């Protein structure tokens, strides 16, 4: 395992795309976390002398301001922080739930598996956007609802992947040896099944984060997600889209940040997949 991780790290290091992507991700995360401390402008402070001003290095607003005079750089960083947090939390939730669900279905198999997979199929058959709109109408808009509705879809694919892996190892000899050593079902799933399916899970998880960021931005763009005065990259892009003829930078700054973030996350995920994609022996 240790050797496997070492090999994977070495393969990852020899992939320039993945290394650049990782560096870019780290930069963006650092910017989003500590950037606001160094920015001269607050994300909610209104600067009436610069309303919808274009980006300029010599002014106080390097990336310009929106139509209320708020500093775009500060707002984009705040939006990025929210988007990343949503992406991470929702991925973690879908990861935990999906792994547990998939491992139980795949290891136990038989009727339990059939029933659990039918439930997944029903859930993934629901038209998601209508589902979210229904929930919003019934419960009112809230950020928890956003987490819930994103989490409700994110775990489905994860559960399928883990279930497939668990099915493929449930009849391996070391599982049989564990049964013969008197390990109960719960112990076998937690100690022998899940750690041995973790490779594909890591890869899928790194590809889930950008998907969820994308989905959150999409919901926020439609006005179903994060609400003013809080910002996410999606709400900033929606705002910018309204002004894109007069002040294109209001769209381009958060849009560019989102595109760069998604590109880096996807590149890194791909690199990780290539690095981990070896036959264990």
């Amino acid at each position, binding site marked *: 395992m240790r*050797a496997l991780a070492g090999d994977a790290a070495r393969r990852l290091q020899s992939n320039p795309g993945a290394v650049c992507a990782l560096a870019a991700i780290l930069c963006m995360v650092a910017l989003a976390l500590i950037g606001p401390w160094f920015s001269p402008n607050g994300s909610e402070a209104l600067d009436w002398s610069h309303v919808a001003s274009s980006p300029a290095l010599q002014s106080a607003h390097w990336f310009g301001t929106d139509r209320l005079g708020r500093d775009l750089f500060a707002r984009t960083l705040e939006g990025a922080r929210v988007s990343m947090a949503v992406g991470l939390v929702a991925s973690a939730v879908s990861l935990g739930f999906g792994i547990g669900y998939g491992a139980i279905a795949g290891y136990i198999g038989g009727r339990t598996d059939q029933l659990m997979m039918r439930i997944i199929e029903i859930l993934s058959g629901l038209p998601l956007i209508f589902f979210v709109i229904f929930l919003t109408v019934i419960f009112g808009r809230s950020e928890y609802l956003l987490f819930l509705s994103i989490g409700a879809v994110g775990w489905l694919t994860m559960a399928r992947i883990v279930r497939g892996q668990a099915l493929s190892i449930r009849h*391996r000899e070391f599982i*049989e040896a564990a*049964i*013969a*050593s*008197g*390990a109960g*079902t719960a112990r076998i799933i937690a100690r022998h099944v899940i750690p041995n399916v973790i490779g594909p899970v890591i890869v899928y998880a790194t590809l889930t984060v950008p998907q969820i960021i994308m989905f959150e931005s999409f919901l926020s763009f439609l006005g179903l997600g994060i609400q003013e005065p809080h910002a996410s990259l999606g709400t900033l892009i929606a705002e910018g889209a309204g002004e894109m003829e007069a002040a294109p930078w209001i769209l381009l700054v958060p849009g560019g940040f989102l595109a760069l973030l998604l590109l880096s996350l996807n590149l890194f995920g791909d690199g990780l997949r290539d690095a981990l994609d070896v036959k264990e022996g």
Partner: protein
Amino acid sequence: MVPALRIEDLSVEFRQRGARICAVRQVSMDVAPGECVGIVGESGSGKTQVFMAAMGLNAAQAALEGRVRFEDADILGASPSELNRVRGSKLTMIFQDPMTSLTPHLKIGVQLAEVLVCHAGKSWSEGRAAARRMLERVRVPDAARRLTQYPHELSGGLRQRVMIGISLMCEPTLVVADEPTTALDVTVQAQIIDLLRSLRAEAGMALVLISHDLAVVAGLADRILVMYAGRIVESSGAGALFARALHPYTAELLSCIPSISGPRLARLPTLTGQPPQPGEAFAGCAFAPRCPRAAARCRTERPLLQDVSGARQVACHFPLSA
């Protein structure tokens, strides 16, 4: 004396899409405490299935009949949690392929210690100390370093030693070794057999050695049971069996062992014909189609396992004379 393991009239049947496949037919046997019993038979003779049943490990579609008692617990009727108290502590199993029977992501030391932690309620530090002593007992050189290694860093022979160590952690009453040397090189095979012999002398547990290789069983077993097509056809002390087989099948098996000192043969002797198909039904003796001594009676009437001289049993109408 109360036997460590008592199997009575055990039958194992697989039902698949209406077809019924009998893997084990009314097998009875006792394993006394401290005894080493060798189970010999071809692939498909049901030798592994008997002990899968004895450990409650059969596949879900297997239908079991009969009784299996381990010490004073009824194995066939036991719940999973009752089984798990016995399995791995008092009744353990060594598997055929050490390359795939160790969980790949856990260190050797953890896999050894875990048995004690789970079954005997010991702490991890006690478990680790015991794991180290066990590695020394199963003659793994450089035990301290091996504890922190992963299974893939060990050779097949070392891994089988680790498997044997895992099976001995809780001082079991009975160890079932299912073809423990089949996946290993011949020289390593001999080392493992030696190891099993000396461990049995030290620990005094009963050992069931399942093998298709008479030579492996010969050096270790006190008593040998020969299985054919799901039944026991001969039961005998090891010495007596090798001196003089009673069942024609056993005799044929023995004659197939090539001798290093004998005349060099152009072709190695083999048994003619094939063992019966798993689903095949036969009225008489299952070995009759391949048997040189078969008569009309063998094809219509099934021979029962009967006592012969000197605590030997044979299931044959025309046994070779003792």
